[in-house]
């Protein structure tokens, strides 16, 4: 197979596979599916997913190195600013700048 055709085929396959994962719940559960248990699940999932995503992002930080120290500082800046000001953009940009300064020096 020609290189570009291979890439195009791979992209098609990936597009379909990704779309199927995102479409599945909408096909399985109609709109009328509002049992109280179901409601409870869909209400509890966002806080759980957010917790898991944060841990996932931090899972590769090497402990007992300087990396864990500056990652912690950057997290503290992000969270602290956010609790104080509740401005998402400000918290994210500040935390990231702090992190970048540590990484690049």
């Amino acid at each position: 197979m020609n290189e570009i055709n291979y890439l195009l085929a791979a992209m098609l396959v990936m597009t379909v596979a990704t779309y199927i994962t995102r479409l599945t719940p909408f096909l399985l559960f109609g709109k009328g599916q509002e049992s109280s248990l179901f409601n409870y699940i869909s209400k509890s999932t966002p806080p759980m997913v957010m917790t898991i995503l944060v841990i996932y992002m931090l899972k590769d930080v090497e402990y007992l190195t300087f990396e864990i120290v500056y990652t912690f500082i950057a997290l503290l800046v992000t969270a602290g600013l956010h609790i104080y000001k509740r401005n998402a953009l400000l918290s994210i940009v500040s935390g990231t700048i702090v992190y970048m300064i540590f990484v690049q020096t």
Partner: protein
Amino acid sequence: MIRSALTISLPILFGFVPLGIAFGLLFQELGYPWYFASLMAIFVYAGAAQFMAIGLLSSGIGLLEIAISTFFLNSRHMFYGLAFLESFGNWNLRKLYLIFGLTDETYALMTTIKVPKNFTKERYYFFITLFAQLYWVLGCTIGALTANALSFNTNGMEFAATALFVVLLIEQWVKVKRLLPFVIAFIASAIALLFFIKHMLLVAIILSIASIVLLRLIKIQSNE
């Protein structure tokens, strides 16, 4: 409405553009024309899967393997739609696009924010989803185009995605104010990290949902 959606989606910009640039840079090492990085961002639109694809493509692996790995890598998305069964509205092109654009970041943002009262939910979500994808396409394109000429040191910029999730975690806490989901997710993550580190995300999500269902059922039983 468009301006409000733009403002509220800006945190995603800071997560997506640097990550997209990183993707574009790496993708260029495969030696394809730059615009294939943009096409990937437009059609595949899945961060983790695109990064994985770079590795798979360079090894010339079969299409079936690519399909299966993509499917499993993204299977956590199967749980994301649950939050939007109602709010994505009726079946139409917009709903199909909203589903297409349901990434970690849009899911996180849209489950956290409150849609302003005078706006239709699905239209508001549509613009957020559209802007988010634009940021991603922009990032991937910049990365691929500047692969040979980049002078700005982007090291550490990837922290923006972590910071975004931290901010949304705090917002979730403000919104939910129940400790249980956070504790369950924390324990589930620890278990997943210890035993299933390769599939940590998916295992942790399944464990969390299973636990919360179990606890709920026990509670309903004991109330009867």
